[in-house]
């Protein structure tokens, strides 16, 4: 019990320390002294200020939002679909929002409607329809067969990728380059205005999802059992599908397809702190955000000044991890 308090106390400090470390790292070397000066508004050179505040900070913040979003939605989908292997990427939901976003980009619909950009809206709709399809396609009464659902998700992802490729043939080279870079999955440096809107969407959705933690616990025993203990399952599913699409869509519209974060983080956390969503969901927000900050920093510095798409890094960590989970499940099945 005492250990737990120490851990809880240590987490924010670790988070801030890692964040500062990543903020400091990059092609241009910046000392702790310079970072301190910029932070507290003391005399720092303009160049340092620009690098830290205009170039690195918005990107790190977006990375944090992305990581939090992907791991939180991963954990929610795993509970909702009663399947440890569920993840927005594998279920085709990222693909759905990507298709929505590519359609919007391809037809140059870069409009803004009262702060709502068209690209995220298309991405959110794409995500929403994909998850509705996968869920209802796979469901048999109260029962969601794992294999049907994963296979439906994977074949849908393939179809969506094909559609995206098809759309790409219609684009001019400049748009093509833009879409292509985006699809590989990377964290851009957003404008602060954009970042503000995205954080609003994300914080709103997180605010809706976190209080559902206990309901998610009940839902892991199936829809019927959740109803038995008094949960309005249809309402809960609507809330979760909608807020998860909002989350996934608004992030995918900016970052493209970053896979596997939604599987790695919730799984590692379940091993560490158990399956109770009241602890798991907040932990996903905290651990997911810092994981992505680190992954994106690695993407920036490993081959500096060349950047690796961060999707490559997460896939190279996540792919083997996913195979490991499948292998462990297989052994469980044999036992």
């Amino acid at each position: 019990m005492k250990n737990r308090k120490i851990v809880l106390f240590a987490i924010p400090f670790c988070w801030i320390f890692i964040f500062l470390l990543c903020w400091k790292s990059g092609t241009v070397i910046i000392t702790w002294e310079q970072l301190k000066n910029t932070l507290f508004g003391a005399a720092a050179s303009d160049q340092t200020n620009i690098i830290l505040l205009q170039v690195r900070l918005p990107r790190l913040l977006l990375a944090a939002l992305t990581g939090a979003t992907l791991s939180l939605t991963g954990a929610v989908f795993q509970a909702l679909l009663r399947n440890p292997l569920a993840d927005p990427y594998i279920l085709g939901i990222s693909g759905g929002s990507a298709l929505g976003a590519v359609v919007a980009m391809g037809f140059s619909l870069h409009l803004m409607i009262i702060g709502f950009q068209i690209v995220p809206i298309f991405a959110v709709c794409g995500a929403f329809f994909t998850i509705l399809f996968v869920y209802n396609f796979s469901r048999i009464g109260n029962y969601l067969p794992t294999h049907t659902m994963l296979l439906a998700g994977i074949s849908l992802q393939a179809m969506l990728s094909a559609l995206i490729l098809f759309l790409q043939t219609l684009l001019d080279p400049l748009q093509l380059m833009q879409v292509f870079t985006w699809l590989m999955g990377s964290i851009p440096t957003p404008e602060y205005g954009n970042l503000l809107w995205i954080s609003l969407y994300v914080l709103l959705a997180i605010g809706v999802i976190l209080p559902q933690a206990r309901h998610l616990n009940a839902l892991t025993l199936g829809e019927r059992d959740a109803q038995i203990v008094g949960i309005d399952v249809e309402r809960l599913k609507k809330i979760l599908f909608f807020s998860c699409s909002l989350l996934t869509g608004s992030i995918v519209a900016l970052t493209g397809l970053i896979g596997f974060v939604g599987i790695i983080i919730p799984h590692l956390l379940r091993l560490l702190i158990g399956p109770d969503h009241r602890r798991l969901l907040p932990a996903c927000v905290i651990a997911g955000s810092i994981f992505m900050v680190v992954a994106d920093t690695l993407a920036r510095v490993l081959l500096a000044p060349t950047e690796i798409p961060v999707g490559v890094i997460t896939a190279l960590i996540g792919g083997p991890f996913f195979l490991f989970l499948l292998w462990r499940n297989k052994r469980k099945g044999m036992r």
Partner: protein
Amino acid sequence: MSNQYQDITVNQLSYSYTENPLIHDLSFDFKAGELFNVVGPNGAGKTTLLYLLGGILKPQSGEILLDGIPLSSFKRPALARIMTIIPAESNIAFDFTVFDIVSMGRYPYHSPLASLTNNDREIIREAIEQTGLTKYKNNIFNQLSSGERQRVLIARALAQKTSILLMDEPTVHLDIHYQLDIYRLAQSLAHDKNLSIFMISHNLNYASMYSDRIMLMNEGRIVKIGIPDAIFQPELLSDVYGTALSVYPHPKTGKPTIWPD
């Protein structure tokens, strides 16, 4: 029990998945203090009826009344404080412990962000003890045997502290010791705590020993409702189950017991 809702009345209830009705024009009632047992061959519609009574399935026609008030007018959390279901089995994708699952029985009493009170913990502890699970309290649900898992589901239902209990073959995976425990527990909840208990049973002898009234079902219809002596007639049973059966009085209690011919 503090809940006032206890008596269930069913009027002309029908339900079907396809054209063939699974439940056909059922009318019956059961009341507080009664252990009401439903028996009948496979596919008689017993489990479908149970989930209709629990509000999980919605009837196509007819009505279910809780103390005269239609079941459909209750919201889900309110209903979970009045009645609960013990499913025949459940599985879970993640490693929740026995305690975690039993404590889900307290969900209907709290807002989503509240944590367990001392009163809740006492109720959970009692439910775990009544089902003989105390030493498995911190074990992972998925690693228990099917009989132990069934007892966890019973404990969860007990922790819900409802006045109506719907049990779907609660003893099917249990050994004789726990089968008798559960029947005796059900009987004492009905008689001593004044609960209404609706139980599906495949064990005709236990149904005869412990229940107050029995409803015999076949092909979605009621064949007969009555005390064990009235239902367990050799011709009637042989006819409904399609195999020759004999009935003899129990050597000690005199209740009917059922034997193959």
